């Protein structure tokens, strides 16, 4: 009996271990994967206001994968939600019967300081009508159209662009893994002034959105892969998942990307002897000290 019991425990605990090893990763997988669809929806939801999204950039790094974009399935949904969302409004707007004798109408003709309005003098009613119809337009007539399919991206020099951009990462990939450059010798470290030079050099190209909400959450790390001459071969946002889940972060990350991709701030001041350490490095853009000064 004790044997059996021991066996049982053993089996049970084994099972637990297996579960821990097998299930837990799945669990985290689920966590890792889940955000994406949710974010997508969020993005679409957020875009309401009668907007139809034709193409949203899915891949935030400059690796255009044009094929998936145009066909992106989620698009039809937003349209319908939006179109459905609009009708409720028109009702209140439509109802208003012919303009009533409101003070407003009496008021209109006697407005001397309104020379710019050509319809200031004519009888009040037409003006009211126009106003009505404007409101109607606002609420009801503005309809969202289907995504413009007629101008697919692949055209003209696009293929060249694609080839170019596909080309770049390839070169970048093998030698530049950050792991590859572990353990640099102490003497090869950047001096403070070299760090400062790198930091200062990019400042003019970084457009900071001051006044953004929760700036302390908008710190963005960008990993750069450099050419020997100090030009940027490739750049990527390190935290891709936040990029796709938080539209404020995405805006901040894109601003940081624009800074490092802006050729006006290249070449970066990379000391020739320090290229090995700076083949790939991270710029951390932190707007929190600039906000609301």
């Amino acid at each position, binding site marked *: 009996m004790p044997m059996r019991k021991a066996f049982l425990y053993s089996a049970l605990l084994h099972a637990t271990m297996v579960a821990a090893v097998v299930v837990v990763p799945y669990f985290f997988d689920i966590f890792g994967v889940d955000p994406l669809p949710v974010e997508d929806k969020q993005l679409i939801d957020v875009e309401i206001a009668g907007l139809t999204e034709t193409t949203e950039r899915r891949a935030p790094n400059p690796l255009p994968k044009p094929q998936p974009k145009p066909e992106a399935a989620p698009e039809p949904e937003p349209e319908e939600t939006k179109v459905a969302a609009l009708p409720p409004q028109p009702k209140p707007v439509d109802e208003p019967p012919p303009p009533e004798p409101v003070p407003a109408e009496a008021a209109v003709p006697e407005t001397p300081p309104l020379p710019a309005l050509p319809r200031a003098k004519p009888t009040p009613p037409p003006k009211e009508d126009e106003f009505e119809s404007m409101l109607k337009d606002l609420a009801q007539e503005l309809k969202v159209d289907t995504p413009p399919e007629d101008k697919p991206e692949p055209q003209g020099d696009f293929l060249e662009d694609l080839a170019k951009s596909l080309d770049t990462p390839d070169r970048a990939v093998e030698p530049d893994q950050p792991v590859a450059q572990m353990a640099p010798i102490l003497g090869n470290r950047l001096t403070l002034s070299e760090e400062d030079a790198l930091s200062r050099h990019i400042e003019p190209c970084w457009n900071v959105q001051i006044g*953004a909400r929760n700036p302390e959450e908008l710190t963005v790390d960008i990993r750069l892969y450099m050419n020997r001459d100090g030009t940027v071969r490739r750049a990527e946002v390190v935290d891709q998942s936040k990029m796709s889940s938080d539209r404020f972060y995405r805006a901040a990350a894109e601003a940081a*990307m624009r800074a490092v991709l802006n050729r006006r701030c290249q070449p970066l001041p990379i000391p020739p002897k320090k290229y090995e350490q700076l083949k790939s490095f991270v*710029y951390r853009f932190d707007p929190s000290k600039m906000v609301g000064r």
Partner: protein
Amino acid sequence: MGIGRLLFDYLVLPAVRVLIIGAFALAVTSAGARAEIRIDVTRGNIDPMPVAISDFFSIEPGTENIGVELSAVIAADLDRSGLFAPIDRRAFIQSTESLQARPRFSDWRVINAQALVSGSVRYEADGRLRVEFRLWDVFAEVQMAGFAYKTPANNWRRVAHIIADAVYKRITGEEGYFDSRIVYIAETGPHTKRIKRLAIMDHDGANHKFLTDGSALVLTPRFSPTRQEITYLSYFNDTPRVYLFDINNGRQEMLGAFEGMTFAPRFSPDGNSVIMSYAKDGDSDIWIMDLRTRRARQITFDPSIDTSPSFSPDGRQITFNSDRGGTQQLYVMNADGSDVRRISFGEGRYATPVWSPRGDLIAFTKFFGGRFFIGVMRPDGTSERLLTESFLDEAPTWSPNGRVLIYFRQTPTDSSGGGGITKLYSVDLTGYNLREIKTPTDASDPAWSPLNR
């Protein structure tokens, strides 16, 4: 052997192993992380972002003007925000027509555009206008957004505002505010016999219209967050009363039959109630009226003057000003009147608190040392910042996205009766980008609408 041993074998040992492996992995990765150099950038430029807004390409004859005007309105909106700097179109290299195929990004980089707006316009078979636009990231060479709209031709301005909002939102992450309107008090006539009328216009000043005739004095209009309604103060038989105004049909209605004065009205965030001050026998308290039942309820009971109530966007709290502490200061309380706490402690007097639609700040008017200021502070009273200062700055109102404030500014009157000019101004909540908002007459008491729907 027993359960203890088993537990040790199956729980403790593996745990220790995991710890060791984990520590090793950590050591490896942190060594890797230390190897990768990180440069901190904590300063950037706060110049507006250069954007190129191309004319919208006219796909068929007859829409050329609309295409040009669309892009002009979009550019003006973005420029006014202070966050974007539209590039002079005379610098553009690529034609609007060839842009329809695909931008030549190098052409736009040359003129320092960071983003590019392109678009087209044509008539549908049903006579409506079809406007299409795309937003491009010039450096990353990708499309950031693309939408198409159909609308009656005379509604093109609104489409332009909606496109500007879409660009603003995609690039900043925040909702835009261009597709919105402003009500204000239009003032004419001599200071001794001032005529004040309710007026409304698009946020950019277009489609201006007077809503009342000036026979009764009107003050402090506020937009409903949910309906085409305005609540405001009007004098009836020399007694100030809170009224409702229906923008759709011009109907006015007095709210409630109070004995005494009601003033400083404002809608609740759900649009179903109006919160206001009710003064009787020298005591002013805050009341709330349910617009569906027309029943009013008293919220504050202090013998002091409580006024200018404003809800937090979640409807749970109310900020107001009161002289219960001796001088006029700002307070916050729960929506049922409980837990009143003072939040302003700076020198001077504080008035007209308005809770930001984004929830993070309260804007106010401050009077100190003979000057007026518009400022913002957090709802707990910290981080007070003064944005503007003049002889008389008053009555801030928030843009729908909580980024921008509009208020009015009055110049001093001189001995000959001149001066005393009253105009609307806008300022970013960072204190940048102060601008006058053009109105046909003198203007005061502005109120920003929510985004149009």
